[in-house]
């Protein structure tokens, strides 16, 4: 589904450069909920942002369903991005659009006709359990509700993959659990492959079937969550 081959990312800085990813490879299969865990500054966000090329790796290749996106032109890249939903720690909703119009936004970009878009947005709102908030504006929602809207928006174009960068880090434990359950549902019912960036062990244990541990720009361990539990316990201490 997603194949990352030997990518490195060097950020340009005033003092020269900073290597945020050092020859990283990762293979995510269809249906996975793949966790990427590590300490702050390890390079997690950089890695996930290299998957939809919000950040371009300085070296290496990224494949989505066998297509090398690192070799695509602008136009094809925009198209493929529509099949890669993404959610963020601070939600990034459009503040001047109401909930329904936020969900419709990616459909507008994909030039979906108005009627279909309306219907789709309403269905998604139901999926994330926020029907009654359809006319509210983001400023009127709680963090958990905002993230639900963001998830609905990310799902609008039926993506094959959902990228989550610290999607629950701004939320309390109860809300976190409800969002994680929603993600699990989405994975099971809609068959969406999910990549979850987090610094919380709990998140990985709760929903990830696979996990990669990233430490100062490198993946130091990866595999099935259940096989790596021991390693985590060391990290935890």
């Amino acid at each position, binding site marked *: 589904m997603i194949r990352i081959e030997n990518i490195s990312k060097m950020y340009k800085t005033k003092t020269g450069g900073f290597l945020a990813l050092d020859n990283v490879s990762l293979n995510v299969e269809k249906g996975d909920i793949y966790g990427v865990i590590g300490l702050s500054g390890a390079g997690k966000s950089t890695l996930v942002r290299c998957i*939809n090329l*919000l950040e371009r790796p300085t070296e290496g290749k990224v494949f989505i369903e066998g297509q090398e996106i690192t070799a695509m032109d*602008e136009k094809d890249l*925009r*198209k*493929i*991005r*529509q099949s*890669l939903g*993404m959610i*963020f720690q*601070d939600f*990034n*909703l*459009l*503040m*001047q*659009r*109401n909930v329904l119009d936020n969900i419709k*936004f*990616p459909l*507008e*970009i*994909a030039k979906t006709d108005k009627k279909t878009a309306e219907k789709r947005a309403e269905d998604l709102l139901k999926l994330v359990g926020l029907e009654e908030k359809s006319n509210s*504006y*983001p*400023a009127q929602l709680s963090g958990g509700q905002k993230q639900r809207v963001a998830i609905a*928006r990310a799902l609008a*174009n039926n993506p094959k993959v959902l*990228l989550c960068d610290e999607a629950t880090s701004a939320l309390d434990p109860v809300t976190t659990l409800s969002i994680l359950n929603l993600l699990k549902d989405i994975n099971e019912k809609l068959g969406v492959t999910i990549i979850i960036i987090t610094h919380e062990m709990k998140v990985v244990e709760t929903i990830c079937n696979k996990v990669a541990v990233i430490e100062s720009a490198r993946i130091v361990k990866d595999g099935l969550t259940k096989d790596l539990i021991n390693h985590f316990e060391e990290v935890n201490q």
Partner: protein
Amino acid sequence: MSLLTEFSDILIKGTLDSLYMIFASTFFSYLFGLPLGIALVVTGDNHIMPAKHVNRVLETVVNIVRSVPFIILIIAVMPFTRMVAGTSIGPKAAIVALVIGATPFVARLVESSLKEVDKGIIEAATSMGCSKFEIIYKVMVPESMPSLIMGASITTITLVGYSAMAGVLGGGGLGDIAIRYGYYRYEGELMVVTIILLVAIVQGIQVIGNKWSKKINHLN
């Protein structure tokens, strides 16, 4: 108030000329200033169309025009004004100078409004497959609309002052009346009346701007 009846025709024409200058120049300043302001933002470092050299040229042009005092600018651009408006006196001519003076001002206001749009929102839009133009007109502009409207009312009010100055230099309107009758002919009361009219225009614009901006803002 015999004065008012005596000069009512002049005052009405002056007010209409002033309003015409103010709103026409606001319109054209935005026609040029809005794209310029957008260009200033998007060509900046780390924005959606980084272009160092273009950005530097735009910055320089804006700064140069902005640093020329308006009263001097009016005179300096007179040959150009004559070329565009066919004359260097009257409201039409004044508009040319007003637009040249206000465009860089508008560009700066637009720039600061657009810079308030959270980087994360632009990033989210990129991740959804938005093109750069879609990011500009579907994200940056609508998201900063309340602030853009406040900017437009600041611009219009600034142009009230500028248009009075242009009036003094032959542009017509209330500024012209104030100087011609109030100053040269010692009709102090008439000067007071023009000032009251200018204050009323400014107040009106400010109130409308504030209300409108507030009405469409969903940020809180």
